[in-house]
């Protein structure tokens, strides 16, 4: 029972139901995405239900998809635990009339209409190398502390990091090891410790995950190696504030998950109304984020990663 009437240009149609499905609930980034989604929904007159598994489990995520379809949601906005394993369920959803928009972590392109990403993977990968390069004066060994070996986001970013490293500026920097902390504080801590022990000459660690980054920073702090080993990567300003204040972390990057959730929901509304079909070049109104254009591959981008440092960190509170 909803109005399919095409809305006037720039004004969204009223009353869509969306299901916002994170990898799992209970952590900041997704909680913040939900905040953004709710803002967008309020503006558009839609409703967004937020819910998901309590652990990063594909199987449970599929059940949430099926439940959403069964309840005739107009669209699912999903951050996928496994791009491919989710595809059959998402395609089935599409066949039964529930549109799919992915955000944060993409799913197979054939299984969704739009992917709302925080920033281009290239810029996310590059910015971390740029920051670390500055910190370690472009010389010495460094390591990466990633999430799990199968995390597709991290794997893509690491790919772009390696690309960035090919630039001559970095020729005296050597990536000695990619370790995996499995997005688990214990394992991340142990891996970070082991990196410091196994590579006594290590000058830096990039951790492109918000679990790994504070864990690595804390290890360095505890071993009193602040300044000797530089830590950067992706993490929230709240998480990292203490380290930055103490000078243990000089800079790191992230984006606003509120904006990301906001954008994804805006996109979902446009997709649900049929205005957006994922074809490159399509434009839609992303509210306070302005007008957005669909890039090749059905992607819309929030913006650029924000680099946080001692000077600007107090302006951010997420």
């Amino acid at each position, binding site marked *: 029972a909803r109005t399919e009437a095409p809305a006037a240009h720039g004004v969204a149609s009223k009353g869509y139901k969306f299901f916002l499905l994170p990898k*799992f*609930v*209970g*952590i*900041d980034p*997704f*909680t913040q995405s*939900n905040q953004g989604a709710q803002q967008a929904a309020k503006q558009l007159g839609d409703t967004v239900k937020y819910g998901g598994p*309590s*652990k990063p489990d594909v199987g449970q995520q599929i059940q949430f998809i099926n439940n959403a379809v069964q309840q005739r949601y107009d669209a699912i906005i999903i951050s996928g635990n496994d791009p491919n394993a989710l595809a059959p369920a998402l395609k089935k959803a599409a066949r039964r009339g529930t549109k799919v928009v992915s955000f944060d972590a993409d799913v197979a392109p054939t299984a969704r209409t739009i992917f709302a990403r925080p920033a281009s993977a290239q810029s996310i990968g590059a910015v971390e190398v740029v920051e670390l390069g500055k910190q370690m004066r472009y010389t010495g060994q460094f390591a990466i502390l990633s999430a799990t*070996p199968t995390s597709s986001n991290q794997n893509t970013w690491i790919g772009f990091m390696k690309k960035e490293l090919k630039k001559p500026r970095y020729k005296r920097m050597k990536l000695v*090891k*990619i*370790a*995996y902390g499995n997005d*688990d*504080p*214990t394992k991340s*801590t*142990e*891996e970070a*410790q*082991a990196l410091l*022990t*196994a590579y*006594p000459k290590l000058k830096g660690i990039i951790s492109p995950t918000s*679990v790994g980054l*504070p*864990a690595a920073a*804390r290890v360095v702090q*505890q*071993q009193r190696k602040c300044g000797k080993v530089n830590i950067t990567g992706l993490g*929230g300003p*709240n*998480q*990292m*504030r*203490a*380290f930055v*204040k103490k000078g243990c972390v000089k800079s790191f990057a992230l984006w606003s998950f509120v904006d990301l959730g906001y954008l994804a929901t805006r996109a979902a509304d446009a997709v649900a109304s049929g205005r957006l079909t994922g074809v490159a070049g399509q434009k839609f109104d992303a509210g306070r984020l302005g007008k957005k254009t669909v890039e090749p591959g059905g992607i819309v981008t929030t913006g650029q990663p924000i680099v946080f440092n001692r000077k600007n960190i107090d302006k951010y509170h997420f």
Partner: protein
Amino acid sequence: MSARGTQAQALAATAFRLREFGILVALLATGLFFTLRATNFLTGDNLQDIGTNVAIVIVVAVGQTMVILTRNIDLSVGSIVGLTAVITAQTLAHHHGLSLWVAALLAVAVGTACGLANGLLVAVARVPAIIATLATLSIYRGLVFQRAHGVTINQSDLPNGFLDLATRKVLGTPFLLFVAVVVVVLGSAFLHWTSSGRDFYAIGSNPAAARFAGIAVTRRVILALTLSGALAGLGGFMWAARFGTLNAVSASGFEFDVITAAVIGGVNVFGGSGTVLGAVIGALLVGTIANGFTLLRISEFWKITFQGFAIVVAVTIDALVTQRLQEALRRRRRREVAEARAEARESPA
């Protein structure tokens, strides 16, 4: 007779440490291997890292050992650690001036309550421990979600004095490890010297016989699970101090590490045998394997594989050593009994 008697006694006493002996051999072999192979394995800092890493596992495993000894199991410890860690962190975040002792006490109290609930379910309501604690695993985890509200507590929210616990040293030992050592000493003493502790063994060894012998089985099982909860509460306090970043998923799956330590350390899941010391060695073994292979600079994928097989090898070494020694002991005892009897026969004649 008396000389032989003491000899036999000394041997029998060794026999009782056999379970630990086998796994200790495995631990030493592992240590030796890494010392030879891995850069910087045998350094004070690295060993301290291993110790600190397993400190929380050890504290919680002491309680788990007691539960397993009574032929029960506590699967809810991971959730209890998570719950108490989040509660501790939230409390300290809101009351920066609060004494850490009070915070620790609060964590232990919450843990105790969770453990007591487990105990009542198992011993009074007679729900099998594995089902009861599987259920409370989800229930307590659900409570963590409700408490945490999807928000992460970060280091910057917590008082420095609390975060410093993770780096502070007491008598040259990292504070967390020190706590673990104290818990281990107390736990061992409890199991060896108190009647309640001995009852745990009796109950697990033969529950029916324990009841016949007039042991208060119900109360002891409640006690074991409550202690496990209390120690998980202490573990939660330590967890919060160690990681400083807490959210709804903190310590999920931690029960697995704890049970692994106990099982590898020779605590019999059928109850009745095993020691706190065994669980400690088990935790150290697993910690050493994890640390050592990481230092080896081999590929991540082979690392996981080797870590797993190393556990299998350690278990095998343990079993072989134990079997050998026990067989030798059996023969020896048999011979001594025969000699004693021969002596006894000759003297009156």
